[in-house]
């Protein structure tokens, strides 16, 4: 397993390299943001240990940059600041886990094992599909550059579709994911909300992306078709 350590403090970087090597990882060290971005782009790492406080651009920007370049290696953030806002910002930027300094090597190793176990599938912080874009952290959604005004249920529905682009989602599945177990309302609530969503997402733009699959359910097409 190959791990990239991004840490500008030489002493901590050296210790991380030593500890991880002793655990059997092969370790590279990057001392600043641009170096880290370049290394992750050039080589394939199984995990990145990223210090938040870096000279120049900080770890959060580095993480965002990696994700925007389509690099999905799991990122474990290290920071000497443990305030809530910093943790939230770090995780929302696309980091997968968070560890406060001073850390224990045992915990670091356990977290790295867990991250590597999950693999590196595409898991963008912002979801995109055919002109639609949705940010779960800020709870905003856009069609192109136009921001969409969605109710909480419509937002959840759109998020579900964006997480499964091109797949047919049955009414039952939608009901299970967007409404909770205790929901006991009208049976056509899914059709009703898909209708609301279309009125905001498709119709004002004259396109059809959210289509009905007769007798099965609904599908978000990867590319929208002109309304007809």
């Amino acid at each position, binding site marked *: 397993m190959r791990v990239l350590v991004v840490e*500008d*403090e030489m*002493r901590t970087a050296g210790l991380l390299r030593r500890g991880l090597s002793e655990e059997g990882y092969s370790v590279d060290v990057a001392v600043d943001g641009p170096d880290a971005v370049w290394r992750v782009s050039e080589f394939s790492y199984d995990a990145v240990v990223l210090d938040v406080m870096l000279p120049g651009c900080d770890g959060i920007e580095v993480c965002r940059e990696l994700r925007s370049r389509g690099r999905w290696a799991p990122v474990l953030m290290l920071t*000497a*600041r443990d305030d809530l806002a910093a943790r939230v910002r770090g995780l929302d930027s696309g980091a997968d886990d968070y560890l406060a*300094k*001073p*850390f224990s090597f045992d915990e670091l190793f356990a977290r790295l094992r867990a991250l590597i176990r999950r693999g590196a599938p595409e898991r963008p912080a912002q979801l995109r599909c055919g002109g639609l874009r949705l940010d779960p952290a800020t709870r905003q959604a856009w069609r192109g550059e136009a921001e969409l005004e969605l109710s909480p249920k419509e937002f959840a529905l759109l998020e579900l579709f964006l997480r499964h682009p091109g797949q047919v989602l049955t009414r039952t599945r939608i009901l299970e994911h967007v409404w909770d177990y205790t929901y006991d309302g009208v049976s056509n609530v899914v059709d009703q909300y898909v209708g609301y969503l279309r009125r905001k997402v498709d119709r004002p733009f004259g396109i059809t992306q959210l289509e009905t699959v007769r007798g099965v359910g609904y599908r978000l097409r990867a590319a929208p078709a002109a309304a007809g």
Partner: protein
Amino acid sequence: MSLRLRLAAIFAFGSAALIVVAGLAFLWQLHTSLAAALDSELKLRTAALAARLASGPLPPGSPADQTGSHTGQFPAAEQVAQVLTPAGAVVYSSGIEGTGPLLSPAQLRQVAGGPLTFTAVIEGERLRVLASELHRRSRPAITVVGVPTDVADVAQARARLALLIGAPPVVLAAGLGGWLLTGAALRPVGRMRRRLEEITEHDANARLPVPATGDEIAALAVTMNGLLDRLARALARQRAFTADAGHELRTPLTALRAELELAARPGKSREALADAVRAAAGDADRLIRLAEDLLLLARADEGAAFLAPERIGLSSELHAAARRFASTAAARGVAISVQAAGQLGVVADRGRVRQALDNLIGNAVRHAPPGSTVEVSGRCAVATGGGGGRRVVAVEVRDHGPGFPREFLPRAFERFQRADPARGRADGGAGLGLAIVATIAHAHHGTVAAGNHPSGGARVRIELPADPWP
């Protein structure tokens, strides 16, 4: 007692006092003018009586059947008049039933000295009486004329009654008015107090609404908001300092913990363990330095007297500081030159001055390129910049390195600021060196300035007040 109640009471008492004084003055004025009117009437009547006496014998006295209406000028019918001999015998009497003289023997004697005016109750009626001696050709006589005072008495009684009935409601109204007015004036103050009560140390952005009245209340709100601003800034600085200090402490702690944890793993050689112990000791040193720096800053912030001043010569301190860095500098191929003119006496804390000099010379040696010289100079001077011609000792440390980055200069003396973040951390500096120099200089009522020399290299100048009795 609330301010409102006090003001209302003051209003009430004030108006009561005013009414009493004005009322008394009015009653007195009324009394004197009425008396004057009666007196002039009496004089006229005396003159008329005298004229009648002169013209011939008087008709016999009329009985008191003429008493009647008292309206208007005193009608002749009800006039009381007597003519007496100087001995007191009644010569003529009109307007009264009795025949006795109206004057007592004592009053008779007084009349001999001049006209006498007095008020008497005659036959149940208050009369104003004027007795005067009449000098007739034949023999002297005394005329006594009287007019009833009841009209004047009634007028005065009415005025008194009006005052007694009218004053209490006016006093009450004044008190109530004071109460209402003060309440209205103080209402914004109450609102402001309630708002202030709601503000806690957590909502640093809470401010008082400033009324658009432009009055004293608005000024108070503005002043209060200014205070809140200053407190919020101080709190923010304190929080930032704590956060930065926490961050700086965690860095060596992280290394120390990682080092010890790695050393504790099995299969370490003796040399590896010895290396780990050395490295851990280095981390501990860094932590100690950092803790001491933070403690110094915290003490200076508290304003506690953390200095132990004594009279020292900076000249020898400069040479001593240069000697302390001699080996470090030599290892980097850097020379240190010291130029000190005279004793350079100051009253200062020797330990703190050494600390400041070490920070400055240490920075300079670290940034000086090999083969260059770090120049340390000290001399007596006149304070630069607003010192009012104060005599100071100026110490300047200059290197021939890259100098301070331009954007760093404005915050060179702020805490946790590094000229070059990457290099600073590699050197183990927490960005407190110059902040401590500034704190020490300011604690000695001195100044500090950082800049770049025109021909390159950083220079920092400290000015400390010169020892006034060298």
